[in-house]
């Protein structure tokens, strides 16, 4: 359903991503992993049409999205990494805005928005301004807005950020049900434990290049490591965190007599 072909994008001559290619099939949940600055956000911005690649293309249902961005946007549900919303709108008003921008009918918006807000435990606060919402509540509004128009492709960028344990579990179940309905899901997260549980496949990116594209279990087996976290650490050559932490404590103690 979604196919990235040799994407390349640079900023002021410095490549952010190089030769990024992968696919997300209908009914598949694909984890997209990488350390900070690896090129995940750039890739997602290109997929969502907010950024144009210098080279390569993104295909959706076999069509280049650049040729019919409107059709692609109509099929896309997106939860961004940062919960940036129009703070002065209430949760319900925000969903109404998104529904209207997507051309849904008033009755449909009303029915879907109120039901989603209720299911996401936001019913009591649906008329309160978003500025008063906690991070988890904002995240739930974003999830509701992404689901409002029954999209075929869903991109979740750190969707568990700020969510409590119950909401987190609900979201994991939701992902599985969405995949069972034939939706293609691209799931970006740093919580590797969850990625290992819910994703059919993971793509690891570092320094703008795809390093791995395989099932989590296959990766763990192939690299003879205990879990995905260890695989990730080895793939992206993470520094020794224990040593780093020790150095930070030493800096903190400078000047102590």
């Amino acid at each position, binding site marked *: 359903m979604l196919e990235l072909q040799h994407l390349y994008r640079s900023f002021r001559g410095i490549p952010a991503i190089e030769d990024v290619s992968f696919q997300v099939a209908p009914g598949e949940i694909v984890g997209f992993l990488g350390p900070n600055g690896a090129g995940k956000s750039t890739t997602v911005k290109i997929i*969502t*049409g*907010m950024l144009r690649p210098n080279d390569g293309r993104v295909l959706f249902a076999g069509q280049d999205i650049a040729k019919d*961005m*409107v059709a692609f*946007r*109509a099929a*896309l549900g*997106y939860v*961004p990494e*940062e919960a*940036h*919303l*129009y*703070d*002065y*709108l*209430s949760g319900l*008003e925000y969903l*109404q*805005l*998104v*529904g*209207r*921008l*997507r*051309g*849904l*009918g*008033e009755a449909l918006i009303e029915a879907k928005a109120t039901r989603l807000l209720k299911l996401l435990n936001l019913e*009591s*606060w649906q*008329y*309160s*301004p978003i500025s*008063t*919402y*906690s991070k988890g509540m904002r995240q739930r509004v974003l999830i509701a*807005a992404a689901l409002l128009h029954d999209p075929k492709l869903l991109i979740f960028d750190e969707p568990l950020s700020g969510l409590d344990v119950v909401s987190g579990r609900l979201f994991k179940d939701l992902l599985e049900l969405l995949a069972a309905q034939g939706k293609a899901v691209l799931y970006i997260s740093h919580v590797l434990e969850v990625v290992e549980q819910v994703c059919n496949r993971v793509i690891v990116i570092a320094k703008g290049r795809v390093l791995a594209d395989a099932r989590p279990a296959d990766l763990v087996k192939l690299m003879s490591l205990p879990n995905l976290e260890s695989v990730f650490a080895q793939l992206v050559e993470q520094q020794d965190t224990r040593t780093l932490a020790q150095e930070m404590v030493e800096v903190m103690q400078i000047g102590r007599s």
Partner: protein
Amino acid sequence: MHKFIHKLIDRLPLDFRILYRQFLLRVVDLEALSIQADVVGFLGQFAGVLIMLSLIHSLVTYIGFWVFSAPAEHLAFCWHMEHYLISTTMLVIGLITVVSWDATFPDRRDVMVLSPLPVAPHTILLAKMAASAAVSGLAILALNVASGVILPLLLGVQPGPAWGFIQSLAAYWFTVVAASAFLYCSVLTIQGFTSLVLPRRIFLRLSAFLQLAAFGLFLGVYFAQPLLTDPVSLADPRNHWVLASSPSYWFFALFNQLNGSWPAQFSWLASRAWIALGLAVTGAASSLLLCYIHTMKKTVEEPDLVPGAGGLHCLSSFGNSLQTAVALFSIRSLTRSRQHRVAFAFYLAFVFGLALSLLRGEMAAAAYSPVSMDLLISTFLMMFFAVAGLRNVFSLPISLTANWVLRTTQLRPSEDYVAATRRSLLLLAVVPVWLLSFALSLRFRPIPHVAVHLAVLALLGCILAELCLIGFYKVPFTCSYLPGKANIQLIFWGFIIVMIAFVVPAAQFELSALTVPLKAAFMLSALGALFWALWIFNRHRAKSAVIYFEEIPDQVITTLGLSA
């Protein structure tokens, strides 16, 4: 002198100095003015404008003082200038109280940030008061720097040149400071007691409307209050209620009383100034004190989130779903963002005050008035300012980082977005002004003339909306970008100057056309054709346009500059 002031400041406690500097940055409502933390630059420009005004005032005072030589004319001119300078100072201070609306009271941010720190509440209060006083003092000084010397110098000829000047000078400066203190303290009193009486959430909602009401009141009174600065008008019993209810006349009387040049029969006006000043200062002091004792505690205890109430659910359709989305987004942005509300209110209050002052006579008349130049000019100006003002406010982005949602949901061609913006312009500027003009027109006759004028006004509003849409390929409140990086303020004021130059001949033409049906029909047809041509032009250009969005967030870090 500079070193002495620095030494004096250095003797103040460090926590007071840090808080004073921080509050000075926030006295001017950054949100309302959108000046991106450049307060020093803003204050410099602000003081520069006021000093220029002061120089113009003093020049006019000096020339008029010698031109009007006949005793009655001379007295009327002097009194007029005195009242004008005092009321203008009050207006400026009034506008400062509007833009620094919540600056003196503790807000949630202060309480949450400063409570864990070893800072006493009275230090916060004193630092806030010092910051407010500094800005107000700067304004009073700048506005009166030249006129506040020239006027006393010219007036102070009795009983001897030196003593008379000193008496006039002291009387003038005391009066402008007292009048400013009265206004500032009155606003603080109303705000303070409202915050004490009402639950905090309701107060915060009401406070926004109080701010707008105060803004309209200050400008409305300044422009609409009648001129009663001669002995005959002052003695006329019909003017008693105006004098009794207008603070600028109380302080005008106070100045003359202190200057020793006030007839005893009007001393009641000066007494009102003293009483009002005493009440305002006492009210402000007590409400501030109570606020710092009670409100800080209330602010900490209030829940972070309380259920809200449903808003504009009944107004759910303004055309297709995109037009409804953009219209409701515009209405909510305009009504809920203080920055946009105050900016739009500025344009409206200024011109509506002017219009009311033009139509004062016709509105007060017992019989219907014939359609006049005053009606035509005032309604034209209201339409120009409302449409151009709203177009200007549309270009102030409200939340750049949230614009991603508009980009990812852009499912329709750009001409649909331009049509949705057009509808918002018509809904928020043209229709309200037309309705207000309709209400004002009820006092005018004959009805056919009124009907033709209202038709002309409606077409004019539509034409102005189309003019504003040329090159405006964006959703309101989402982007400040203009093709060619033009300066929106320059465009706005240029547009207003052109329109004002156009208003008088246009009104003269319309007035002459009203009595000739054929000419009136031609005028309406020409306006209709112009509107249709502009509509076609905008629609055609919008088809190939790209809708712009801006996503660079504002700078959020400001430095206090306390280090050497």
